[in-house]
């Protein structure tokens, strides 16, 4: 306790965005919840794809090439519907865990301008989630292709639309996580953020769909296409040259994958603007 002076060789460095990214990387990787969530993601992606590939039977059904590709994409991305819940929970916890424990005070004392801390968090969590999702989806696709072939479905791995659907699935998972982080920053509570995000993914689309079916109003079906999870799920739809097909069978609007991504990105941008304003203004 006698020596307090720092080693004189070290330069007196200040806050940098690179430093913030490294800090957020350390924070993300030093919690058990992160390791658990990503393990579940990898396990689900590969296991469900293998199950699908080994059990699917197309006897008696006739598929064209596009249909077979769509099935191959479905095999590799079958887990996305469940994985997005896992990633959404993790995305919320990334920020609400800091509010719940008080860590946010350390974070905002180290980065008192605040917004770089939020965006550092979003970048690190988004990139890590994207890369882990993409790796596990690609592994799932490669492992599943021979199983599908054994069941009469020949996936054409040289088809760019096939790969862009897989990349889209990983992108969708990363964006659903960031969506949850933005909600978490706004409401600052784990339970509240998770409830809202699950409501967006599971409850609201169902309610809108029921209304569309009851009323048979086309504008409600069209509205449904712009909900974050519905728009986002278009990111991993296999779209052959023949164009997109109507997934809900409601005769409503069908977004192209890039349009779906754009709609989801708009939602996230709006939420992040609100989150930024609140983060900047509120006492911590």
């Amino acid at each position, binding site marked *: 306790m006698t020596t307090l002076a720092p080693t004189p060789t070290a330069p007196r460095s200040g806050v940098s965005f690179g430093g913030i990214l490294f800090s957020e990387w350390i924070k993300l990787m030093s919690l058990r919840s992160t390791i658990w969530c990503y393990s579940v993601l990898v396990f689900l992606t590969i296991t469900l794809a293998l199950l699908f590939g080994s059990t699917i039977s197309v006897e008696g059904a006739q598929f064209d090439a596009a249909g077979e590709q769509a099935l191959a994409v479905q095999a590799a991305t079958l887990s996305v519907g469940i994985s997005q819940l896992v990633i959404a929970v993790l995305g919320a916890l990334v920020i609400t865990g800091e509010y719940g424990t*008080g860590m946010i005070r350390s974070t905002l004392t180290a980065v008192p*301008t605040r917004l770089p801390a939020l965006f550092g968090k979003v970048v690190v969590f988004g990139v890590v989630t994207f890369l882990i999702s993409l790796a596990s989806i690609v592994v799932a696709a490669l492992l599943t292709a021979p199983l599908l072939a054994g069941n009469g479905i020949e996936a054409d791995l040289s088809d760019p639309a096939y790969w862009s659907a897989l990349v889209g699935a990983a992108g969708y998972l990363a964006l659903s996580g960031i969506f949850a982080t933005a909600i978490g920053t706004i409401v600052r509570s784990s339970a509240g953020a998770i409830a809202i995000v699950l409501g967006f993914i599971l409850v609201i689309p169902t309610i809108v769909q029921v209304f569309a079916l009851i009323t048979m109003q086309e504008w409600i079906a069209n509205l449904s296409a712009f909900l974050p999870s519905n728009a986002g799920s278009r990111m991993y739809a296999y779209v052959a040259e023949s164009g997109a097909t109507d997934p809900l069978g409601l005769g409503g609007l069908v977004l192209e994958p890039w349009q779906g991504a754009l709609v989801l990105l708009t939602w996230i941008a709006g939420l992040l603007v609100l989150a930024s304003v609140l983060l900047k203004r509120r006492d911590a």
Partner: protein
Amino acid sequence: MIEAVGLSKHYGATKAVDDITFTVQPGMVTGFLGPNGAGKSTTMRMIVGLDRPSAGQVTVNGKRYAEHRAPLREVGVLLDAKAVHTGRSAVNHLRAVAATHGIGRSRVDEVIALTGLQSVAKKRVGGFSLGMGQRLGLAAALLGDPSTLVLDEPVNGLDPEGVVWVRNLARHLASEGRTILLSSHLMSEMAQTADHIIVLGRGRIIANAPVADIVAMSTGTAVTVRTPDAAKLTSLATRDGVTVTATEPTLLVVNGLTAPQIGELAAKEGIVLHELTPTVGSLEDAYMQLTADDVEYRSNNGGF
């Protein structure tokens, strides 16, 4: 140096901090005293930009905290509330905080050694005792080797050895020319550690002076008198500006007269004295008198 000018924080109609102006000088330990709810913690949070002032401003070394390029190197802060994720180990917490400023692993290991956390550094913070949590908070505050330290209740939960360590650390850091602002409820501890005291009550500054001056504010040094003739001495001594309180049948506490005056009075009247002891006012006495009107949460001493 910390400078607050017209600093205020209102929550609705409640004025947690009400237009306070003060300067915390470098090279000494400044103690922040006040009853619960007086605004000490709120003021400290405003210094490091966690709470936004309703009016006025506070600067550290001439700039608002958030305007510093390397805030952790200017100000180290220990807040009374927990500020650590319970699921993370102590060393990873410190590494994450250090990384924002490009502070390396060697400094992290230094502050771990300095605060005596080596044996628990790799354990998750959730299992820490209050004292260990305080040591981790102090380690984080020291990471940037800051020229100013803001410590809210730093000895809270520490064992006696830890209390002495914090006292010596604060004195040592002040002797190096740093600015130290610390709050404590332990008055005896504050008397030994601080050079200067700022007393807050209901969000306002009640006193802002060197420790010796604050102690001298303790009005009317008391004198303890033990005499078998307590009733007679009481009636003779009691007059304007003098109060005599009997704490036991033969023991009186006299305020407003000096020991020689009481001795001479007793000799003149032929009263036998068994004890005549002037008691010097303590910081605690001074504090209690200063804040008597400003205690927001008062315990009811049965019957009063």
